[in-house]
């Protein structure tokens, strides 16, 4: 019965017992984390999203140039991919070919063409434009750049004004993700208030709130957002527009979560522990916050994560049609404004790179949401 390889059976049993003890005594959150860790796709998605957030937070350091810096020598330029070898041999440090300006033989417009005989080497932690990382650490060091300060490296090409697509995408990542976070936070607070009141009070109050929720849910959401966004005065500063946008997105994002909170509250309203708290003289706010909410916090978190993609997609869609954030603010949607026609796919397809970020971010949030939902469900494993 006992196999020889384990040696002492007592030790094996002891280990097993320890493991089980650890499992039984683990807190709810530890259990959720353990289950989530096993969800490989969600872990990958989490890592990708974490990286994206880092790129956004440290945009000033990661991006070699500012979001509005123009390179008039390289307009509508194709991505410059660093290489190790060319016709003249190989080198240990990556390099790109220098750019020289020529006249188009037909249209006589100035066009920039790579000069295969001129090498410019890529340098890491190169010095460049002065910026403030996180808004307060002044530095001239960027993650990468060129050894020659006069030339510029455009990893993902440039747009029609010669602005670096890579740098702009980094800054846009910050804007788009942060607008998602703020929007979700605002709708979370609203959902907590509205759903909390409806679910705790019940009766007539609940009926009225349910009616209003129904109305908000039945109007198509993007046209509704558009109506509010269109009303933003033209003379508002970019900061005002930014915060107005988060407010608009948050203002109508609450119905789903509010319904969830309401139905959960209604279902545990007459549980013994709630009645006990009420008899002990606790106020409604305390009963909801201290006694009722903790029993379904994990569901709320799942719902919040799942609502992220909608915020990001809404912001992108609004900015895309010119009703959301406005230049010089850069967000994924603002960047994609330049990629509105089939002509762009044919001539400057690299302007679509921000769209890849949108797709990846939305996918990542959805996968994490699914992983969290499975992990938060106490019946998802039979142990």
């Amino acid at each position: 019965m006992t196999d020889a390889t384990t040696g002492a059976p007592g030790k094996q049993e002891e280990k097993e017992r320890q493991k089980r003890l650890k499992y039984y005594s683990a807190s709810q959150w530890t259990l959720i984390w353990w289950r989530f860790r096993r969800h490989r796709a969600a872990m990958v998605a989490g890592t990708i999203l974490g990286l994206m957030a880092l790129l956004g937070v440290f945009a000033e350091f990661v991006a070699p140039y500012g979001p509005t810096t123009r390179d008039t020598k390289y307009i509508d330029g194709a991505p410059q991919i660093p290489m190790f070898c060319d016709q003249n041999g190989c080198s240990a440090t990556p390099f790109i070919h220098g750019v020289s300006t020529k006249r188009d033989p037909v249209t006589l417009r100035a066009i920039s063409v790579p000069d295969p005989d001129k090498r410019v080497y890529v340098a890491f932690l190169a010095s460049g434009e002065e910026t403030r990382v996180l808004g307060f650490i002044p530095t001239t060091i960027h993650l990468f750049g060129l050894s020659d300060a006069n030339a510029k490296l455009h990893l993902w090409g440039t747009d029609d004004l010669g602005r670096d697509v890579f740098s702009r995408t980094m800054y846009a990542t910050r804007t788009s993700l942060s607008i998602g976070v703020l929007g979700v936070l605002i709708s979370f607070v609203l959902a907590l208030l509205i759903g909390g009141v409806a679910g705790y009070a019940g009766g007539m109050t609940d009926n009225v709130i349910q009616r209003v929720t129904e109305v908000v849910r039945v109007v198509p959401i993007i046209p509704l957002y558009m109506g509010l966004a269109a009303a933003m005065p033209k003379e508002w500063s970019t900061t005002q527009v930014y915060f107005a946008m988060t407010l608009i997105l948050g203002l109508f994002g609450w119905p789903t979560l509010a319904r969830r909170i309401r139905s959960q509250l209604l279902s545990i309203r007459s549980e013994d522990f709630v009645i006990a708290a009420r008899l002990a003289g606790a106020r409604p706010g305390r009963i909801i916050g201290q006694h009722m909410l903790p029993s379904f916090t994990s569901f709320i978190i799942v719902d919040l994560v799942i609502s992220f993609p909608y915020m990001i997609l809404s912001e992108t869609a609004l900015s895309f049609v010119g009703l959301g954030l406005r230049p010089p603010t850069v967000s994924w949607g603002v960047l994609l404004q330049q990629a509105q026609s089939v002509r762009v796919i044919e001539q400057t397809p690299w302007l679509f790179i921000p769209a890849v970020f949108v797709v990846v971010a939305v996918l990542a949030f959805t996968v994490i949401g699914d992983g969290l939902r499975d992990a938060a469900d106490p019946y998802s494993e039979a142990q």
Partner: protein
Amino acid sequence: MLRFTLERLAGMVVTMALVSVMVFIIMEIPPGDYADRYAFRKFSGTGVSVTEADVAAIRSDLGLDKPMVLRYFDWIGGIVLRGDFGQAFAFETSVVKVIGDKAWLTLGILLTTLLLTYAISVPVGIYAAVKRGSAVDYGLTIFSYLGLALPNFLLALILLYFANKWFGADIGGLFSTRYQDAPWSLGKFWDLVKHLWLPAVVLAWSAVAYQIQTMRATMSDELNRLSVTAARARGVPEGKLLLKYPARLAINPIVSTIGFDVNRIFSELPIVAAVLGLTELGELLLKAYLDLDMYVAGAILLLLTFIIVFMNFVSDLLLAWLDPRIKLGA
């Protein structure tokens, strides 16, 4: 059934009344009122200097100086009693004229999209549930993730690009240039049908992805029921069995979310219409917002919401007919 229908109708009226208040508030939000914009539009560039008194005169002419509550009742009264949605300022005509047969085009797009959605998602959902764990099933799961993640305007651009490459230039929009302003005829109708597939595919994309998953999930549950095992034991042919027991019940969640799908389609419509150059309500709505032509925008928003509420009503009735228990519960 009559009682059930009347109850739902009453609910519909209440919802629409509340929606109209909300839409009116949205119409009122933009700074400056119509009189300012009207004066600006009429006199800008003409060299005539407009005084505060001129604007006030326009304002009282248009009845804009009345309190908001009165203006709301003027507006909604005109719509309900006379079918008059007010003035479209940018077009200098009535809203009804501007909207015109664009409403029918929008309805056409909606119905085509819905048909396409259910014609794909129901059979594919059943197939995925029957072949759970197969390569096709996994492929469909990945597709359903992309259904949400791929922004519709991007999908529209990609499809437009390939359509142009394969079928020639005249594929965007709803009509060929030949029929654009022509009166309705059989030729024009056929031309519309040929152009309708592209917006329908783009708009159906996310709805299909979502409904396949719904159909697959409920179908998987229903397949485990004893009634299915019993029918199989009796020797009912597999195809007939699937349709008669599990599919018959699994269709309910789809029917109950018709309103949701309409909502989703209308939500995406303005942006898809802008990219594809569809000359219908979604595109007009976007234009009206950009021009701050709020009577047009309000009318369209109200109309779209009305269609959604109506489709909710239809889905309620359908569901009650499919599953009589619902009627009793109500």
